[in-house]
């Protein structure tokens, strides 16, 4: 249950990560940006971290 709640909050933070990246006159074209793409990067990081964490954990358990 605790894990579910943490995942929910982290995922909720994905759209919210745009709050910190607004307001410097982004035209939306790559290169002129104010990191309008941060939610996508944050989502990607979240899932990649989960992937490597689970892989690493499985390896540690395998060695033990």
């Amino acid at each position, binding site marked *: 249950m605790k*894990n*579910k*709640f943490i*995942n*929910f*909050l*982290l*995922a*909720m*933070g*994905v*759209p*919210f990560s*745009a*709050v910190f990246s*607004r307001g410097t006159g982004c035209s*939306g*074209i*790559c*290169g002129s*940006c104010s990191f*309008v*793409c941060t*939610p*996508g*990067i944050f*989502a*990607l990081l*979240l*899932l990649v971290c*989960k*992937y490597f964490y*689970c*892989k690493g954990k499985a390896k540690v358990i395998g060695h033990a």
Partner: protein
Amino acid sequence: MKFKIKRLLCYVLGFVLFYAPFAVFQKIINYFLTGKWQELTIHSLCLRIPTEHILDGKILQYASVSVVSLGILLVVSFFFGPVFCGRLCPAGALTEYLSKLVPEKFQINWRKYTEIAPIRYGMLAGFCLAPFFGNILACAYCNYFLFDLLANYYLHGYFIALSSSLLITAIMWLVIFGLFTKGGRGYCNFLCPVGALQNLVHYFSSHLPFVRRMYVDKNRCIGCKKCVQVCPMQAMVLNGEKADISLHNCIICGQCAQECSIHAIHYGVGNYEK
């Protein structure tokens, strides 16, 4: 084979209904609302903008075709489940078909690493709360729009420069959550707010006796895992050697029922507690 062709034809129908140059669905709704038959695109249907403004009350300020369409979508989801995703959405289908090009050993089965439902609904909650903080993300991560760009490039040569967020959407939708995700529907699972909203509605309505949903006849199920392997949304799980359907991400595509050799999976009303 017949089922696969039928499914493919449904997605072609979805393209004709929702995407330019046809966009028949929007045109019909627009005709009923305004009395005019106009050329419309996927943008006039946009389901994401009304979804984003569902909590802040601005929903009615937006294009009425979108709001009426979202209303129809939610009513359909209430009674029949998210059939739009499983039977009509060509953007979701594209990545599902693309994922068949990559061998399974190179694909990630996300269910093994994380629970899908909390992330799915967390994204939806963040998406609906973002307008309160001045963020509008509906267009920034839109795979409907990307699909429109790709499809209409081949039909009409119409294309625009991709924004940074659309480039990331393309990478996530087509590559990471498409080609390299088991089932090819990672984007639908994690990042599509419209799909999440439909599943939320379906989850609550499915407890009513007159609502149609997928169910497993537990007395017949032999736990062969065939349904688990074919489910593109990773919605099938084995629970004590019996198959179980997660209503948080089942899109009623019917692949599990088709694959079940002993016909233990059905789509219908009523006796789902078997």
